[in-house]
């Protein structure tokens, strides 16, 4: 990994990294992660983007996921 570089390069890498974290934290990249998992571990067609998020939300809100 390169430590130093031109300022725009460093900035770009920083912004990319921050965007990656933000996507991971918010769940924005969950479908891409699911596709990677599916390609590795399962046969057949994966769920569509829409169906994947529908199932994910249904699972998230069927248990205690928020506190006081």
């Amino acid at each position, binding site marked *: 990994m390169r430590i130093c570089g031109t300022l725009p390069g460093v900035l770009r890498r920083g912004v990319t990294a921050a965007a990656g*974290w933000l996507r991971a934290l918010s769940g924005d*990249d969950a479908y891409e992660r699911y596709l990677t998992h599916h390609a590795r*571990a399962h046969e057949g067609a994966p769920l569509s*983007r829409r169906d*994947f998020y*529908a199932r994910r939300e249904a699972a998230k809100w*069927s248990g*205690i996921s928020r*506190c006081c």
Partner: protein
Amino acid sequence: MRITGVLLAAIGAIALGGIALHRHEPINALWIVTAAVCIYALGYRFYAAWVAARVLSVDASRATPAERHDNGRDFVPTHRWIVFGHHFAAIAGPGPLVGPTLAAQFGYLPGTLWILVGAVLGGCVQDMTILLLSVRRDGRSLGQMARDELGALGGFAALIGTLLIMILIIAVLGLVVVNAMKHSPWSTVTVFATVPVAMMVGLHLRHLRPGRILEASALGLVLVLLAVWGGGWVDAHPLLRTVFDWPSLPLAGFVVAYGWIAAILPVWLLLAPRDYLSTFLKVGTVTLLAVAIALLHPEIRMPALTSFVDGHGPLFGGKIFPFVFITIACGAVSGFHALVASGTTPKLIASEADVRLIGYGSMLLESFVAIMALIAATLLDPGVFFAINSGAGVVGSAPAVAVHTISSWGFPVTVQQMQRLAHEMGERTLFARTGGAPSLAVGMASIFGRTFGRGFLSVWYHFAIMFEAVFILSTLDAGTRVGRFMLQDLLSHVWAPLGRTSWYPSVLLSSTLIVAAWGYFLYIGVIDPNGGVNILWPLFGIANQMLAAIALSVATGILVKSGRARYAAVTLLPLAWLALVTTVAAWQKVMSADPQIGLLAAARGLSARLAAGTLAEPAAAVAPQLILNQRLDAWLTGLFTAILWLVILDMGRVCLRRLRGLPVAGSSEVPYQAAHPHPLALGGRVPQEGA
């Protein structure tokens, strides 16, 4: 590392010393922040590390459920900072904002000390322990663990406790929102507007651009900020403002109707998108508040201790012991966290080594949120603080009478001062806005206003109200839904089809029952001339601490059963403390002869005045309902205490049998499997065969 520790201890000691020595002059909030950060760092670096390594025997070489059952959806090994974010967003609700604000009536010192000590030795330990125990049991819930490890009684107690606590928290939070909106067109418009905004975000996420969470949340944030501005525009409009100027009762009706509709609508339309908005607002506002407090370092105006430690405070009755420990649950110890720590989070943990950061660390951050709420409440002039937070039934409904009463306590305040403040905040009046949200919003607005520009105080105030309302309504939606599932689970024992979570008649019936239950407490709170929060919040606190005691009982039982009795004090001491404060508080709430504290005494007093005809007309009309409610609350408190002691005795029985070498229920821990040695990078995953 050792040098850092010594340095932290020294700075923490100096900061605490600073707080202790400045007893009779205003102190700077920075002393409190510094002491908090040092104590957290020491707790995390030394105590949490010791508990994780020695007491819980955290083993990074052991495969977690996320790795063993990886299915790409609910069981997913995830980077520890991502899980930290999810877990913090899940545990930190409005509780740590409201409790410390109410407890500020005792002065800033009791709340601060309890938040720091309670979190480091109690709440964080509970969260981390339950998290690890659940990780070791395939992510099983607290109720299931109680049933497996202690017996059917423990499981049933956890279920009933959770259901009751859910009903109470929703009612009291609904009351907080209603009190913020009453006769405030600006707040009402802004809070109402968040509903269609959430629905637009939901439609966007479902149909237009599925799963583009960041994009949809950004859109939603812009829209809610526009709603804050739009509320101001409506408020300035002479005709429109009258359309949204409502007293408490119809507003409570709206909240109940909203809760019922939200419970039966599909989650993607309202609940899920509202939650994305509330999470972004929560993290953003809390960060902004921390930055503003660091930049502004305001003076604390509230004394260290007020005369209300004797039990006659206007926000709620009861002496400092045990009531400061009941009022501040979230932020110090919150039993509810044990449900989250044994829910979604354990299924995401990639390595056991992460439980210290996620379990202990997230709770430290929540504790810090509570400290900031305490600072925001205590930097107000005490007279102003009491004028906003005292119910009309306590200080009188006429402003002149209220300021006279409050000034006579030694906290000078004038009608002009309150009018000027209300005008600055864009409100007609700030008197008797009980529940903590408005005074927190005034505190936050003055911090933000002084840091980022004075001109927008009224916008900051309504931004703060919107921020609190958005995640209070999220808790209300999510809580009603979880309550509905629990009720359906219970009802399925009566008639099996009622347990089918997607059968519409059962959905309608169970949602209606849950909404009716919290709607009842909300209604009583609204008609109570003392504000209602004074009764409901301590009841919620007792319920929450009871749940924490159940969680700590399960943890202690498991420690003893697994041959680690010599370390049992780690969970037994917080358990003993919570059992003590909860039992004493419950005893006083039921039995005290002082009508400000004792529910039965209050009911007797009110009945006598009703019979003698000495009550004025509006009070006389609602008195029979208040009397009935006070008796009901007394019974509920008794029920909580009974459940608590049954679980503790059951835990004691299991521990004694184990120590005497008699047979006990077997451990439900999943046997050791080696973890895959590859470290988990962000976005990377642990390779494994099949799922």
